[in-house]
């Protein structure tokens, strides 16, 4: 049996690239979303960030995932996208 032709075992997903928005010139007047992923002591870190961002003139909104082990629910992602002008995203651990 010839092995020269195989079937693609991947999802064959096509990724689309999008252009980034222009970078903001400053934080003043921006609404910034901070997403707490519900890991222990994450709130301590986010509290510090919030006070620094607020001092810089930004409005901060806080959001929280039900559990750190699952992706953020669609509704939560939608809420963040509609309420915020900037989101600070970082990887846990």
């Amino acid at each position, binding site marked *: *049996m*010839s*092995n*020269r*032709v*195989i*079937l*693609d*075992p*991947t*999802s*064959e*997903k096509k990724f689309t690239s999008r252009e980034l928005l222009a970078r903001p010139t400053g934080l003043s007047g921006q609404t910034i979303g901070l997403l707490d992923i519900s890991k222990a002591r994450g709130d301590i870190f986010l509290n510090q960030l919030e006070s620094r961002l607020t001092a810089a003139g930004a409005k901060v909104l806080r959001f929280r995932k039900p*559990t*750190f*082990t*699952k*992706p953020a629910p669609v509704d939560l992602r939608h809420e963040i996208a509609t309420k915020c002008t900037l989101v600070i995203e970082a990887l846990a*651990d």
Partner: protein
Amino acid sequence: MTQIKNPLRDGWTLIVKRECATCVMVVPVIARLVRELPSLTVYTQDDPKFPDGIVSISDADLSASWHADIDTVPTLIFREKGIETKRTVGWLRSEWRDLTGIADLGSELPEFRPGCGSMSVDPDVIDKLRVRFGGAVLHSRQIEFASAEDEFEAMFSRGLTDGLPVVPPTPERVMRMLSGTSRLPQEVVAIAPPDLVELTIEKIAINAVMAGCLPEYLPWVIAAVEAICTDEYNIHGVLATTMPVGPVIVCNGPGTRAIGMNSGVNVLGQGNRANLTIGRAVQLIIRNVGGGRPNEVDRASHGHPGKLSFCFAEDETNSPFTSLAVARGFDASQNTVTVFTGEGPRCVVDQLAREPEALAQTLAACLRTVHHPKLPFAFDALLVVSPEHARVFAQANWNRERVLQEIHARLQMPGSEIVRGAGGMAEGVQEAFKDATLPKFRPGGLLLVHAGGVAGLFSSIIGGWVSGATGSDPVTKLVTA
């Protein structure tokens, strides 16, 4: 790929080959049928001049044989309005006479001769025929290797393997794999994390080929994938966690014996094709279809070797306990997979306990150390009890429920021992719990399976992961053909 149309027409059809002694023997009968049955079409699989002196159609491409589902020659068929209504296989004089209505047909021949194997079911050609005549059901992109490319190396370089060589998933092999299920190739079984893409039976079959599965393993792979892709099991989190865990697949039911799974000696180790390849296929599917790869969404600090494959059968035949599947609400006659999120197994030695209480004490002491002896309630565990340890319980008439109850009773931890700082260890529960008593496992968080070789007063503990809605719940699914 194009589907080749069924060439069979209404009326009589006879399929023969010269290589078959029975076909040669019935040539005088065929000559008579040609005279008396005007609609008769004779197909010849090998020699287009056979039968001598009779006009026949060459079935060298075996399309008529394939579409008529011929496994033996000679086969005589009658079709009306596109539907087959009569068939006889080999030479049985009375049946040929009944079917054709010719009362004295073949008087000069013996009463019975078996036929010969049809060329269309020759193991060397059947896979090619499946692709040629049924391959249109395959929708996956074809990848053609360059002539100088080594196909095994090419699959490594394209990132399609788990670090070990894989079987090239040719269309022939994938079609053969699909014969292991009655489900249609384009049926969507699940949405596969982390890329959240539709996972079809075809993609599962392709990866099952790569893992080295036989077609009869495919329904087990499908059920395991369905189970891990549920919200309760949460394969996304299992994959993404920094902890060293992956799916552990426990198979139950008579089908485990039918496909030759191992539930005995070296049950969690190497050496059994079904155990190893079913588990490996599940991991390959998450890697290749879901897009979950180490150092991408898979962030495990260490991982463990069972993330290549971790699948075994429960020893139900010799067990004094009801099986895991029955304990989870299924019938012993059903085939099921239960997926559990687990780390690598660790051994519990107790060669001295002859009383069930003493053995329960040992098991509890070792289970307490799962992930950390001071952490309660957060992690499940799977306890694999060996036949010799199970015998200690069975001799005292302890059933599954009693064993679990006795272990739980020994795993109630005083808060003072497990608060942060106690025992010189920072890890532990908050000070507020110092006067509480906390269980090591949540209700139902300790799973018991009977498996292993008949010699050895050892059991195995497979520690779990974040349990419940926060992390992962064990999920059991029926295996269906």
